[in-house]
């Protein structure tokens, strides 16, 4: 068996379609984009791809778990700030800051009449600690929120509203505590990491690739989770939580875990954001960025990992293009996007692709060799989990169980392509 055949046979990667999807995404991120655009634009795309970490986490949490967090900016921000604290300390050595009244502390502390480094800043002098903090502090925070809410069976809209309130609290806190956080401007003027200048073009290329690799790491991890029994339970919980509970599972633990995992991914994205963009500010923490990250995921297809990446790229590209030229139009578009995706394309790009591919069964095979098959990648993630699921059309038809029997035949024929079934996603 060749490696290719082995990969295609793997449940983890989601069969042949899944492998192709990943390969195309890898080609786009690692070859097409770096060759096709200049470093300024590539850096911008690298920035978008850091949001994709959040979107991938939301696919697990929201798309598969049915838990909508409107506070993912919390974790993106915590990760980003942890990294920014390390870089800021390195940029604030006593020589560079000798004109300050207290040299050796970050400039904004000096401006706010702080005369010593606050105790919680001390450990961020160490890079290993910082990396450890990026991976654990947001996850720990998510654990506390998740434990408090899921153990008491708070879910649905309540969970969304409360995570939103926490995002608001954190962003007000960061803005309010200027002396410790840099306030509304955030932490700017970050320069080097262990002496390595992160502002150079070569550093930007390296960081872009590192970011891409980490993103693939997050996607593989998510694929592993989704293809395991855990992934199946996640879908089962979304559909019938009580049934899972009365099958002997402690449902809250599963929810807490997936929330923490999504938080950890967001935090890695945040840390990579700081490294690539060179600053971190509260405008990536609060209500608005948190809910925008949800729409990245929704546009790509809430149940599709690869779709989430394309969705993130697409929405941010649109935002950059429009908000530069027609800022007024952009808000209408963004608002319209929220409404349209939810009302007309609840499965996002991935859903549209599935429907299209299902309708013209031949297209699926052609997509293998097609030149521009970006979207061919979407929607196949769930393949491993849902070996045989309804096609998009049949899903709509079975809203009424009476029709179920009549579509049985056609569905089984079409069932090669799986579509994430969003019914019950909100249950």
């Amino acid at each position, binding site marked *: 068996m060749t490696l290719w055949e082995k990969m295609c046979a793997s449940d983890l990667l989601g069969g042949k379609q899944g492998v192709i999807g990943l390969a195309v995404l890898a080609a786009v991120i690692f070859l097409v984009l770096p060759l096709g655009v200049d470093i300024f634009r590539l850096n911008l795309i690298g920035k978008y791809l850091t949001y994709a970490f959040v979107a991938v986490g939301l696919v697990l949490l929201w798309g598969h778990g049915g838990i909508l967090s409107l506070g993912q900016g919390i974790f993106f921000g915590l990760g980003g700030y942890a990294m920014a604290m390390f870089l800021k300390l390195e940029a604030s050595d006593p020589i560079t800051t000798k004109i300050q009244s207290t040299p050796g502390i970050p400039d904004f502390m000096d401006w706010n009449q702080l005369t010593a480094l606050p105790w919680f800043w001390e450990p961020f002098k160490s890079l290993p600690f910082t990396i450890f903090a990026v991976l654990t502090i947001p996850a720990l925070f998510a654990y506390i929120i998740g434990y408090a809410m899921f153990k008491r069976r708070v879910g649905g809209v309540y969970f969304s509203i409360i995570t939103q309130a926490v995002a608001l609290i954190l962003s007000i806190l960061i803005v309010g505590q200027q002396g410790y956080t840099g306030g509304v401007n955030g932490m700017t003027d970050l320069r080097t990491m262990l002496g390595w200048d992160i502002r150079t073009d070569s550093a930007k290329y390296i960081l872009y690739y590192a970011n891409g690799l980490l993103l693939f790491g997050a996607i593989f991890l998510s694929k592993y989770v989704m293809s395991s029994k855990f992934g*199946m339970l996640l879908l089962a919980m979304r559909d019938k939580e*009580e049934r899972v509970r009365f099958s002997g599972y402690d449902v809250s633990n599963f929810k807490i875990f997936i929330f923490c995992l999504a938080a950890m991914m967001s935090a890695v994205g945040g840390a990579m954001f700081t490294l690539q963009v060179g600053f971190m500010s509260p405008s990536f923490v609060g209500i608005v960025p948190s809910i925008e990250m949800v729409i990245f995921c929704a546009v790509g297809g809430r149940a599709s990992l690869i779709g989430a990446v394309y969705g993130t790229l697409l929405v941010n590209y649109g935002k950059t293009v429009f908000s530069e030229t027609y800022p007024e139009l952009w808000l209408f578009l963004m608002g319209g996007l929220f409404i349209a995706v939810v009302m007309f394309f609840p499965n996002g790009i991935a859903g549209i692709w599935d429907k299209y591919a299902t309708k013209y069964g031949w297209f699926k095979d052609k997509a293998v060799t097609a030149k521009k098959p970006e979207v061919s990648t979407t929607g196949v993630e769930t393949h491993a989990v849902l070996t045989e699921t309804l096609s998009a059309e049949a899903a709509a038809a079975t809203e009424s169980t009476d029709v179920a029997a009549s579509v049985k035949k056609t569905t089984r024929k079409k069932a090669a392509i799986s579509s994430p079934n969003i019914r019950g996603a909100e249950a």
Partner: protein
Amino acid sequence: MSNTDFVLAVEDLTVSFDGFKAVDNLTMYIDKNELRVLVGPNGAGKTTVLDLICGKTKSTGGSIKFNNTELTKLSEHEIVRSGVGRKFQNPSIYENLTVYQNLEVSYPKGRGVFGSLTFKRTQEVEDQVRRVAADIMLTEFLDMESALLSHGQKQWLEIGMLLMQEPELLMLDEPVAGMSAKERDQTADLLNRICQNRSVIVIEHDMEFVKKIAHKVTVLHQGKILAEGPMEKVQADEKVIEVYLGH
């Protein structure tokens, strides 16, 4: 409360909702391998009794002992893990998973977060799924999305999901609701088969069906036991006739 030889010993069980006693000082014992049917008019507290046993509702007083373990202190999943299975009134299955997956998810291994992440589909699991699927007459539907099953088949699937866990006590809330006459007969056979090595509590309204399966019948009325015993005896009971036909 003293220990007993019964599989399930419910003693002085009470639950009240804002002063209304849905179950009132109920005492009931279930033997090993017994199939007990709970009957009674709507609002008699039948479903509440099952809710109390499986931990969905917390009691306000009394004790429930399962193999001499107190259940009222345990959480839902702990009760299930101790060997109690519960089927809900409306078929409660995972509609977007296949029949196979529905059964597999119910297999009692890999129940923790990390256990489920490393769970492997072994031959043992495969065999168990096939055996249960044969029991519930769904072998040929294993790969079908379970949303496409008929109403009766969904009821069987949920029973199958419980059988995957090999519970010692199985509680079924109206298992034949919405079934055709033929399906009812098949379900009666199924129940008679599965109570060979476990105890079963069934809530049912259909008296013909009850006659086919019940070892003993308990009649509930306003949260209290009105009568208990073999079907014929209960049917002849004055008070029971009064409650069912009196008004």
